[in-house]
């Protein structure tokens, strides 16, 4: 039950990694970026249709930058809206059709500007999430991430900072994963209280979005939704990057090691551990046999 006039913002972050989507288009004709964006639009429209005070934002996360698809700087309210070919003639709520057109236009712009760069092939998800957080400052908001490409390990610190910032601001991060599981997003959902779902059927994306991610957090408590995934919180040792369950931690710099070494390699502190006393076996007296 929502308090009337309470603004609720949904920020949809779409991973539009051109390399992944380009490859995807070659593997699977049924579900391409166009189809994905259509599903996102349906989700956005539904969210705005739920209540007059609901607001929407859509951000595209590219490997060059992150770009707002909606609301867009090029939007001029009022006159332009009417003459545009946007009036699709189906009696749609004007706000929705305007939104859809803007999103389409912007994504066309973004993708046309894609350049080929070998060195950055990862989606700049952390940066996009940071932008999303900036939007939802004073209003109740949540973020839905639609993830396509794999995690980028280099963004770890930024990602974690974003997650904790979201937690502090009570902003939920939901994740809908199309391809490979993302440990970072699993953590994000676990920490902020959102839902993580890797969908088995990409073509049914719209259905999953509407069923699982459309309700907001209060409504979710009344529904039966997929249970939270088990998150692997094991730490990785600093020496080998192996995930370990039990390890040694330097008390000075808090770096984690899988084996004991008398000097911490990070901060060069020397440690002494008292090893258990070695008990010398007592010499048994040999009995003399007569």
């Amino acid at each position, binding site marked *: 039950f929502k308090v009337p006039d309470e603004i609720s913002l949904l920020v949809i972050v779409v991973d539009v990694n051109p390399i992944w989507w*380009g490859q995807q288009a*070659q593997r699977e004709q049924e579900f391409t970026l166009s189809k994905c964006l259509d599903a996102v639009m349906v989700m956005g429209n539904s969210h705005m249709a739920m209540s007059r005070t609901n607001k929407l934002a859509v951000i595209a996360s590219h490997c060059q930058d992150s770009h707002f698809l909606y609301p867009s700087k090029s939007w001029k309210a009022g006159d332009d809206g009417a003459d545009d070919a946007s009036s699709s003639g189906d009696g749609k709520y004007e706000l929705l059709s305007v939104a859809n057109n803007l999103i389409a236009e912007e994504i066309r712009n973004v993708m*046309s500007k894609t350049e080929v760069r070998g060195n950055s092939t990862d989606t700049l998800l952390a940066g996009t999430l940071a932008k999303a957080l900036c939007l939802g400052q004073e209003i109740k908001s949540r973020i839905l991430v639609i993830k396509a490409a794999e995690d980028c390990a280099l963004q770890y610190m930024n990602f974690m900072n974003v997650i904790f910032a979201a937690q502090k601001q009570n902003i939920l991060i939901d994740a809908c994963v199309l391809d490979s599981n993302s440990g970072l997003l699993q953590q994000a959902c676990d920490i902020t209280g959102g839902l993580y779902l890797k969908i088995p059927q990409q073509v049914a994306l719209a259905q999953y979005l509407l069923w699982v991610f459309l309700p907001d957090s209060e409504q979710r408590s009344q529904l039966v939704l997929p249970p939270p995934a088990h998150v692997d919180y094991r730490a990785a040792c600093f020496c080998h990057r192996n995930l370990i369950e039990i390890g040694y931690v330097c008390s000075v710099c808090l770096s984690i090691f899988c084996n004991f070494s008398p000097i911490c390699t990070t901060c060069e502190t020397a440690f002494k551990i008292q090893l258990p006393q070695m008990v010398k076996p007592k010499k048994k007296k040999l009995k003399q046999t007569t």
Partner: protein
Amino acid sequence: MASLSEEVLLVVKKVRQRKQDGTLYLMAERVAWGPEGKDRFTVSHLYADIRCQKISPDGKAKIQLQLVLHTGESTTFHFANESSALKDRDATKELLQQLLPKFKKKANKELEEKNRMLQEDPVLFQLYKDLVVSQVISAEEFWANRLGGINNTDPAVVNNKQEVGISGAFLADIRPQTDGCNGLRYNLTADIIESIFRTYPAVKQKYSENVPHNLTEKEFWTRFFQSHYFHRDRINTGTQDIFSECAKQDEKGLKSLVIQGVKNPLVDLLSLEDKTLDEGYGICTTLPSTSNANKTVKESSNSAIIKRFNHHSAMVLAAGSRKGVFTSLLTASSSETSSTDGNSRDSDFFQPPVKKVKLQEAIEYEDLQRENRPKTVALNLKKSDRYAHGPVPLQSQHYTTSQDIINSVNYIRHEMMNYKPNLTEVLSSTAASSAIAALSPGGVLMQAGAQQAINQMVPTEVQGELKHLYVAAGELLRHFWSCFPVNTPFLEEKVMKMKSNLERFQVTKLCPFQEKIQRQYLSTNLTGHLEEMLQTAYSKFHIWQTRRMMRKT
């Protein structure tokens, strides 16, 4: 048996106990009774164990004295000496009256401490009930680690209570009520009496001198309130009043206070004077004289009240700061207050330079001084980039050739160039229904949710019992494991005792609990971990025992 070093304070012959003739002995720390002719004591009680004594009423034929112990037991002595029974009994009673209070405090303190700890901590209380009341371990073992040496530490540390100060208005608070017919009722509580004694040691002296020999307590206080000492106008009405001496002492004290003056060099009391400019704003030339001779009656009674007022305040302050010899030697500032009471005998043998300290206080601010923080060592990180990597192990990236990249980018650009949303064909019905099936209970995505959280399946009282079991088991296991390594014979004994305690715990507490939950058809294994812990303890004990056997052979 009586040890030779015990001092015997009183011997009373012909005292019967349980219909047997014998002799009663009162010693330094205990009371004992031995039957006639025998050399040893059959009854012996430490004064610390005795809660109170009772005597038979005066009219009765049998002259008896009963000792009630803290445990509730009581022992009765019958004084059977025909001639001096009553005297004997009374002598015994009085001696006990003097001795018991000395020992009472020690015993009570421990018990009080225990009670307090049990009351304050419900977990501890529950643990106590589980372990001691059901006789899994004895009370001594339970309290062994917890009391923290009430008897060992010096009283200065243990006695953390702050001393209560004296309210300046305590005399005024007595508030007499009219009795109806021309009399006044004064309600005296123990607190007020204590305040009076602390503030006016002279009164305390008079009290100890006169009560209970000459006057009863009631009479003493009646006289106190009647005397002019108490009332405003202290006009000495002769020496009949026992308090007139007190009044004289107070006068002396006040005079010595004035002579002592204030030790603070920054305060000059003498420059303060009551100078009035009289009417006429100073035009009038004759100054009013302040000599005593011209004082009117009103002025002299005013000055008497003021004098009393000042004296009372000084006494209250002195009583508050009079804590014994130590504090007066401590700091320079307190040396000032310790001699505010003109009658105090503990003069300062040390007189640290008060002036210097006062001046320092006046010119320096602590906050503005440089902070003396302990020296710290700076953190020196050689490889700080290690922190930037998360627990994502460096996986092998998939390799995309540059040709792949170029192809993909071109493809996508081509696709999106003419992108138009087609919202009427987003989802086919088959896709939708299979998605819904996957999301419905029992579907592919809903499997993990079938396992309900344990705490929803187990009733709360069972959970509570389990918690208590864990706390109790934890306590026993802690005692057990702390015995290792077993170095001393004491630890050997303790480890064996703890093992039997653990077994007893398992039998009396754990097994019934397991049976209970089985009866309730709870299939979850709630006690698996507890059993595991106990098993580990048993196997450790077994290993230790076999090693010990081997060492002996």
